[in-house]
């Protein structure tokens, strides 16, 4: 089984933890590494603080997602184009 050399010890060092921090926050790390990174954050105040900052940053970006909706004008335009293409459905959002 292939393992990441940076993660090849039971304990994760700060550099490795910071390198994989986003994957951890995104839930993309995989269960084994996630446990080990979480363990590191519990004992390392530097990385713990950094994780808190990145988490707040990502939450702010997500919250700022423009609640932008497709303009009605464009929706009508798309439906008309689809009808010309033979679409017979109805627009039921």
């Amino acid at each position, binding site marked *: 089984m292939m393992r990441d050399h940076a993660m090849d010890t039971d304990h994760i060092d700060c550099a490795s933890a910071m390198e994989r921090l986003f994957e951890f926050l995104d839930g993309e790390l995989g269960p084994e590494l996630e446990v080990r990174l979480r363990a590191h954050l519990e004992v390392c105040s530097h990385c713990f603080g950094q994780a808190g900052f990145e988490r*707040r940053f990502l939450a702010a970006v997500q919250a700022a997602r423009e609640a932008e909706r497709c*303009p009605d004008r464009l929706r009508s335009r798309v439906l008309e184009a689809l009808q010309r293409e033979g679409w017979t*459905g109805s627009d039921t959002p």
Partner: protein
Amino acid sequence: MRKPAATDAHAAFSAVALAAIDDVYRFARSLTRDEADAEDVVQEAYLRAFRSWHTFEMGTDVRRWLFTIARNVFLRSREKGKREVTLDDDGAEIVDAAQAREQWIQGGLDAILERTDLGPAIAAALAELPEPYREAVVLVDLEDQSYEAAAEVLEIPIGTVRSRLFRGRKLLQVSLAQHAMDAGLIPRATPAPSAE
């Protein structure tokens, strides 16, 4: 199960594909950064999606499928015009230059991240990200796509999604700090040595 009649397929297209039009529109906006271009991309993407609706696997993520189509439409439309430089190292030096100011950037940002009026500054900072980073950040952070889905849409290895996200988010922080400063949300703390 019998093959659904054409009318069923058309109804399913409405219920599944058209239901995601807000997401496709938002994604197209982030790709084109232009309202008129975004509208063209959305219309053409939906036409293509309808023509190949029979290839969509019901039960899989329709947004991932539509994003892929929309991005292909966008890339095709741009081939006619000037191609944007999409070097993967684009922006590396900005991140490097920001290392020295990292403490200040994080401190400044952390003080404002919970403000509810931060939306415009974040949107402006996002729009400035070089395209490869913007695509990755938009798909994962704004459209809630997994790394795997983003890799599929962008046609890049998952490791590249990872590195573009990392650099893209760091670039976004630098840019956001600048916008927040310009908007007076963060005090101008660090005097730039070369300013005036």
